[in-house]
């Protein structure tokens, strides 16, 4: 095995420290026995008990997870289909349509979705804004990200594989199920995780599209900033990080290959 030079190790460690140290500090300070949370005072689980008694914060966390899971699942399915379609049919308009929500400023997307919901859903379907409107909005902006990732992975692929599958008598569905899908799976997974993360921490679009009584963690935490953030926010972030990490570990157990690069 070839040894990596020292500078590479240093660079890698610095990069990882830069990425993970802030998170580590957030976790550490969730156990800090001080409302101020300015310096380390002592160990306590007080903020976690506070958190589990805070119905508002818990409802917000539950909403956030529900929205993130539903929106990322739906966006992954739709985005994958869009990615495949763009690859197959070289229509100029398709990529533009799929990618526009990614490029559009969030405020614009948020306000236009709110106007749209109010102009179309309320008078015609009698639907008031609520949790559903946030989910629909999140699906809208997540689709673009999944599409891009899936399409890029398809671009790098050798077309002859698909032709070979068909030569050997596979139906289009079999070709997709047995050849195409396993090949693009890492991209689909990456898209799904990206949508999950984007949905979980979106503020602007959620702010505009959330109906009365529907709060999410970013909305909840943001409204607390005015009165100084307590370590309870660290606690809820820690729980969320643990959940996300757990999901990634679980996903990689179920399909270990999904997280390796395609190497195609």
């Amino acid at each position, binding site marked *: 095995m070839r040894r990596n030079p020292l500078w590479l190790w240093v660079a890698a460690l610095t990069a990882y420290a830069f990425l993970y140290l802030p998170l580590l500090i957030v976790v550490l300070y969730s156990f800090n026995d*001080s*409302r*101020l949370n*300015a*310096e380390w*005072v002592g160990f306590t689980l007080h903020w976690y008990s506070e958190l589990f008694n805070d119905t*508002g914060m818990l409802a917000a966390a*539950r*909403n956030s997870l*529900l929205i993130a*899971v*539903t929106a990322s699942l739906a966006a992954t399915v739709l985005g994958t289909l869009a990615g495949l379609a763009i690859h197959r049919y070289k229509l100029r308009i398709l990529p533009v349509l799929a990618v526009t929500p990614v490029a559009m400023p969030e405020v614009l997307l948020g*306000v236009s979705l*709110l*106007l749209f919901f*109010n102009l179309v859903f309320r008078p015609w379907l009698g639907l*008031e*804004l*609520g*949790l*559903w409107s946030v989910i629909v909005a999140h699906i809208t902006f997540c689709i673009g990200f999944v599409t891009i990732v899936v399409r890029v992975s398809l671009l790098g692929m050798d077309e002859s594989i698909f032709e070979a599958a068909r030569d050997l008598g596979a139906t289009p569905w079999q070709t997709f199920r047995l050849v195409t899908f396993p090949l693009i799976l890492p991209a689909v997974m990456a898209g799904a995780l990206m949508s999950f993360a984007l949905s979980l921490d979106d503020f602007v679009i959620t*702010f*505009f599209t*959330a*109906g*009365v*009584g*529907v*709060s999410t963690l970013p*909305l*909840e935490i*943001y*409204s*607390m*900033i*005015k*009165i*100084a953030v307590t370590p309870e926010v660290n606690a809820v972030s820690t729980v969320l990080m643990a959940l996300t990490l757990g999901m990634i570990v679980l996903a990689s157990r179920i399909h270990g290959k999904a997280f390796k690069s395609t190497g195609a």
Partner: protein
Amino acid sequence: MRFLALLLLELSSALHAADVLHLYNWNNYISDATVARFEASCKCKLVQDYYSDNEEMLAKLAAGASGYDLIVPTGNAVESLIKSKQLRPLDKSQLPNLKNIDPAYLDTAFDPGSRYSVPYAYTITLIGYNEQKLRELGIPTDTWAAIFEPKYLKKLKGRVTVLDSQRELMAAALKYLGYSANDTDEAHWRRARDLIIRAKPYWAAFNASSYIKELTVGNIWLAHGYSSDMFQARQDARQAGRPFTIAYSTPKEGAVLALDSMVLHKSGPRPDLAHRFIDFMLEGQNSAELTNLIGSGNPNREAMRYIDPAIAANQAVFPTPDIQRRLEMLKDLDRAQRRVLSRMWTEIKVR
């Protein structure tokens, strides 16, 4: 599947909610005990959504958000809601407790005749300081001079923050110069600007969000900010066992008072519950609980006897009549004035 079930549950619970009052409020702006008592008395549920800024709330409503029964905007924001015809006039026959409000807070410039709004609580923009440090350095704490005069600032270099707000900082400077906070004379504004520019090199920062922490940690000794934030800082410093105390006072030249009021939004489906809530909050004890929680000023005369004596005696929260006369609510500026102010603000910031 679990998620789908949860989703359905969520949707159906929203449909079945019969007696629900939706309050669009600031975070931590009502005590849990008050909420519990209201829910018990009306056999309904109070659901709150939060905003952290008036503009944020106005933007959401302007884009067409609906379903909020009650909102708690600050002075000017009430005026813009009235102008855009988004509010429902109050039915005062349903508000017998309205008599508890000090008339000084009724019939305001933003809502003449108090047709739409009922005062909820107020904050004063004042100075908070490290008591021991300022005494040690011999700096007066009852005047805006502390944040504007170089002879004092010399001793406080890098230990002072002011609000990062055009209107608030200009108002403080105008007050110190003896003008009204709502003065719109450009010559007076220029004097205020020069005063600010002269003091700026001594300030550590324009800070609107983290001065509570900076004060309690001891990095900052003097801060321009809101009375409820200073209350928080004082409590935090005490709880953390700091070797110093945070105090705050309303400068004798006068200051800005921001009054938050309860208003009914037209889109709210339950004006009946909203009126009940307003009348409930006008009861002395319920109103006092908010003051005891966050140290806000209280326009309710009946509340005084329920208020924690330490807060009731605090002249920064409940100013003497003499200072009270010098408190002013900010009025909206017109477009031309806003432009002039923005230009001056840029001049201040780039110096």
